[in-house]
């Protein structure tokens, strides 16, 4: 197969995006048709790339002594399956967006920048040249900024914060790449294999890790996700921060910690600590959120912790678990944000206090949301459990006895996740209806329901037959076949669960349920409550936990933005500029003396070197 096929999923969306921006706003069908068509073509190409052996692509572009810029693209087993999922997600979300955006509110930029993001992220996973990699990486960041901005005027603040934080982290990545070049004088990613000894590789690793952390959204550079979610359209959150950004961030982290650098156990420990803290604290914050979008975005952060934990174990099982969890997380998180979008579409709100009782009118959304909630909470036999289980095996395999702390943190994190999603299921779908929910009369259109259901089905498939993705995607990617110490026979367990369900149903049949059933109102000890006063607000479920002695202080800090590096760095930046502003006082003599001082310093450096 020709190597040029690698260019299709990168160049086609980029060209399509430019075309989308050029055509007038009125021709909506053309823009959306084009985006779906291109996403479909890219998906088909990604399938080809996944199933065939594709040689690398190499075009000389520019060479200047040691410095060069080539168009190097190469496909590895890991990038092949990530490519497949990136294109698939964009395809599903662009179908979803057909119905999500109404006639009077369909931002022209949306399909264009969705395509840019697609092209950019396909470029990131295939690029084999660091500068090319960085260019594509930036394309994704910029498209994310514009996509969040499509949420209207309110979205500006979140978009700016996102751009500032990701931009800053990308700066760190650039510095890291620079250090790598300084050490090896090579930009070819696949040739790098830097052992970590001395301070320079450590700094380079940490800088590049910062880029990965911010992109994937682990602590401490996670705060852009909740702020972006405040007013960005849910499909945007679904496609970028919830899935593609995770795929890219973890892709980079896996590359730097397994192939670009040879990391030491202490750096692995750093990753594990970041992971454990992220899991616990993000989910604790998520539990007390009042808005569905913010809640989901905190879970998007918390799940990254599992991947960091898996990569930090530095053994094949943990790594396989991390990659598998990355895949699973992007599937169910995508599904959750899409169902959030369905709820917003029908009720016009995502405030948990204003929702309730939607299960009857929106059964498909309910099913998709319930399945993905169970998957994210790690309930067997869904996919979230399979990958978490692999990560736990990896933690046990590290040989560090103290690493059991991480095991406890990770398992406790999934109990907290369950708590949080129980609140969502209750507040949105069960319980009694609120005024906003009364208005809803029908399920979302099929263009929105089908992508959600496909993703929910994937959650189940990847859970029941978890050997399938593990053998075909994950094991080739890490190059070894994973030997697991414990046992989880998911297929047989699912079969037995099905038998158990049939047993339960047959008890219903034996008791002749249909004859004996009768519908009655709720029994509240004889009290007569109308639906408003008799309604329990789901947002107050975990107040008891918020009011625990020590936790109260932490939650207080969280609300004041203490854990947000954006605030700290913003304040620092403002202080520095205040000092610098004093220098610019408009007097010519000052400026001249500054220039003179600069020249003297430069001459001094030239003279001494």
């Amino acid at each position, binding site marked *: 197969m020709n190597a040029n096929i690698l260019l299709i999923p990168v160049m086609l969306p980029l060209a399509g995006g430019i075309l989308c921006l050029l055509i007038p706003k009125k021709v909506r069908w053309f823009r959306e048709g084009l985006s779906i068509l291109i996403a479909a073509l890219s998906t088909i190409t990604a399938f080809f790339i996944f199933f065939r052996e594709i040689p690398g692509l190499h075009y000389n572009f520019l060479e200047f002594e040691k410095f060069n810029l080539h168009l190097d693209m190469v496909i590895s087993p890991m990038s092949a399956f990530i490519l497949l999922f990136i294109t698939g997600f964009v395809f599903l979300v662009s179908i979803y967006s057909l119905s999500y955006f109404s006639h009077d509110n369909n931002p022209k930029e949306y399909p264009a920048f969705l395509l840019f993001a697609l092209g950019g992220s396909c470029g990131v996973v295939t690029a084999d040249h660091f500068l090319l990699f960085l260019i594509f990486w930036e394309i994704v960041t910029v498209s994310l900024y514009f996509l969040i901005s499509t949420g209207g005027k309110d979205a500006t603040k979140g978009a700016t914060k996102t751009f500032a934080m990701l931009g800053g982290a990308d700066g760190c990545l650039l510095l890291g790449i620079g250090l790598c070049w300084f050490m090896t004088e090579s930009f070819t990613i696949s040739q790098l294999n830097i052992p970590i000894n001395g301070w320079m590789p450590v700094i380079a690793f940490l800088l590049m890790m910062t880029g990965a952390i911010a992109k994937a959204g682990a602590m401490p550079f996670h705060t852009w996700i909740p702020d972006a979610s405040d007013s960005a359209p849910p499909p945007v959150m679904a496609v970028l921060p919830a899935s593609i950004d995770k795929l890219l961030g973890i892709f980079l982290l896996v590359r730097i910690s397994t192939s670009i650098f040879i990391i030491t156990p202490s750096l692995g420990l750093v990753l594990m600590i970041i992971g454990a803290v992220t899991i616990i604290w993000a989910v604790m914050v998520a539990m007390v959120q009042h808005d569905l979008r913010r809640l989901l975005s905190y879970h998007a952060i918390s799940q990254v912790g599992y991947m960091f934990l898996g990569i930090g174990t530095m053994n094949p099982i943990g790594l396989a678990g991390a990659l598998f969890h990355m895949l699973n997380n992007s599937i169910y998180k995508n599904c959750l944000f899409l169902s959030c979008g369905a709820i917003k579409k029908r009720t016009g709100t995502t405030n948990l206090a204003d929702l309730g*009782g939607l*299960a009857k009118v929106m059964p498909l959304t309910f099913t998709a949301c319930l399945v993905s909630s169970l998957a994210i909470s790690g*309930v*067997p036999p869904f996919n979230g*459990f399979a990958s978490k*289980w692999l990560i736990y095996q990896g933690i046990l395999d590290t040989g560090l*006895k103290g690493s*059991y*702390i991480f095991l*406890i943190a990770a*398992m*406790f994190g*999934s*109990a*907290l996740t*369950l*708590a949080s999603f*129980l609140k969502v*299921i*209750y507040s949105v779908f*069960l*319980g*009694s209806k609120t005024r906003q929910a009364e208005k809803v009369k029908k399920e979302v259109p099929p263009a929105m329901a089908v992508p959600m259901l496909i993703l929910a089905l994937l959650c189940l498939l990847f859970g029941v037959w978890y050997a399938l993705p593990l053998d075909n995607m994950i094991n080739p990617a890490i190059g070894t076949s994973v030997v697991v*110490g*414990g*046992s*989880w*026979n998911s297929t*047989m*367990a699912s*079969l*037995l*669960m099905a*038998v*158990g*369900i049939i*047993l*339960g149903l047959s*008890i*219903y049949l*034996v*008791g002749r*349920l249909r004859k*004996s*059933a*009768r*519908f*009655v*109102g*709720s*029994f509240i*000890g004889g009290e007569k*409550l109308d*639906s408003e006063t008799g309604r*329990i607000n789901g947002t107050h*479920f*975990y107040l*008891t*936990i918020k009011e*625990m002695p020590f936790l109260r202080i932490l939650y207080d800090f969280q609300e004041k933005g203490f854990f947000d590096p954006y605030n700290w760095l913003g304040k620092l930046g403002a202080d520095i500029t205040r000092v610098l502003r004093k220098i610019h006082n408009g007097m010519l003599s000052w400026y001249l003396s500054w220039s003179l001082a600069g020249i003297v310093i430069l001459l001094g450096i030239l003279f001494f070197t």
Partner: protein
Amino acid sequence: METAKYLFLFIIFPGFLFTALVGFFSVWVDRKVTARVQWRVGPPFLQPLYDFFKLLGKETLLPKKGSPLVFLAAPIFSLMAIVLVSTILWVGIFWKQSFIGDLIVVVYLLIIPSLSFMIGAMASGNPLATVGASREMKLIIAYELPFLICLATAILKSGASIQLAVIASSPVIASISGALASIVVLLCIHAKLGFTPFDVAEAETEIMEGIFIEYSGIPLALIKLTQAMMLFTLPIFLITVFLGGMNFSGWGILWSILKYVLVLVLIIVIKNTNPRVRVDQALKFFWLYLVPVSIVAFLLALLGMIYGIAWL
């Protein structure tokens, strides 16, 4: 053939039928001991069975508000999960081999009954049931943390293996850390069973059975069956992980049954001699008292591991 064997294990022995029968026996023990504590005579041996079949024949009331389908489906899922756990544990006990899953799988499966109860309660549309469900979830969060720390202690003590058969073969309780952890896990299991003093989710006197308030007839029969099975399975879990498992050869039979009855009676006595706590008190009890105890147990086990002292 393999599948047929698994189906037999799951449905007849040691799965559904066996667990149900022994579960009903445990319920009888519970009711009898409770009656004796309260100076009553107590019910006849087959009473739990009679109750079950009577409920099957009763009228089933479905909630007008909420979603009846989820309401009816929830008890089925709880039943399925507890049968699966019981099968996994007993295959490990009888045949000393791993079946379907390891300790982590069992811990996750053990959440499903409570989870289904909560979802069923929320689907009933009754505000009291919702209060019960939110309390149940807080209780899960409360006991899960010490529970997990103690399980990590048990894994440490039994040589870093999470295979049930391996853990069962090492008596974790025969050490200081193991003994502390066993006590903590006993209390966690108590909370899992929803017994007084941790019956905040049911709290008959204030929210009238809370999560089960709307259930009647067949779904209630399924819930009673699930609870009976839990009363049997959870002590077996404690015995497998902490008390050196069960052994069915020679005098081992007697000793194993004695272990089970002891744990069961201990749970029943605790249940009958304590008043109910509030949910915030339960949270504080588990997090501020039992978590430090389990951390001490964990650290002792770690020290014992590093310095090779078995009794620590």
